[in-house]
């Protein structure tokens, strides 16, 4: 199992390829859309590259869920995510920094949850899970 740093470096290389950005622009807290200029189609590209690069399967919506709230007023009111919505975010995006987001939960800032660190943590958990199910694999 690669170390977190090794995973991070590979995630960076993936993003450099996919988004055509300089490695220097990439920090753990960099947001995919705001900082790195990812567009919606790039998310599919990133998923393909991560699957290939790490040899894992990423089920649809697991890393980058689409329309989490579906316009439900229980989850979003006056442009802010409700406490119930925050709970839903914790379930759907367990690797994102929801605590920081919850301090000022503006719904139009949701895209900031998708950071390099979030992808790294997701991949780390995926690889750990695989190690548990296949302990003999080196």
């Amino acid at each position: 199992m690669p170390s977190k740093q090794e995973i991070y470096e590979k995630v960076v290389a993936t993003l450099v390829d996919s988004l055509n950005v300089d490695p220097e622009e990439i920090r753990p807290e960099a947001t995919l859309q705001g900082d790195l200029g990812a567009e919606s189609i790039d998310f599919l590209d990133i998923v393909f590259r991560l699957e290939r690069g790490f040899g894992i399967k990423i089920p649809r919506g697991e890393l980058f869920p689409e329309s989490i709230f579906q316009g439900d007023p229980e989850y979003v009111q006056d442009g802010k995510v409700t406490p119930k919505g925050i709970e839903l975010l914790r379930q759907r995006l367990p690797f994102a920094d929801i605590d920081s987001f919850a301090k000022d939960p503006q719904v139009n800032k949701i895209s900031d949850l998708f950071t390099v660190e979030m992808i790294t943590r997701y991949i780390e958990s995926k690889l750990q899970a695989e190690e548990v199910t296949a302990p003999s694999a080196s």
Partner: protein
Amino acid sequence: MRWVWIDRFVAFEPGKRARAVKNLSQAEDYFRDHLPGYPVFPATLLLEGLAQTGGILAGQAGDFRHNVVLAKIHTAQLHREVYPGEMLEYEVELVDYRAEGATVRGRALVGTELVAEAEILFAHVSPDKTTGSGSAAGNFVFTGDLKKLLGLNRLLPTQPSPSTTGPD
């Protein structure tokens, strides 16, 4: 007129790879302007041909249920110009495939000479997600008799079809 930039499929392995040809004729309109006095096949159309070969390979992998839309060309290398009278052969292989889209790697050859290569990402748009009417609604990519037109009917495994048309 359909926007078709391949003439015919010559090989098709479902879900894996496909090969199509495109003959370049001096009679095609664009050669008059591209370039005046020096006819060269526009690289954009070459990429379109590669994308169509790959898009149909990806489309068939999903049984033509999705609209396969060109989303991104990762890399494209053009090794030399292509001229009227030459026959392009587009070879593509399906690199990634999932419900949301596909990636293909393609090469364009004239004879055995590699003239271009590209990696292309497609996104799937479900017919039920499209809005509007007419050509923008429903399945707007794989319409009409495309399979017959491109010789795919002969290459794909036979499926029960209501069509009574014989082989061309």
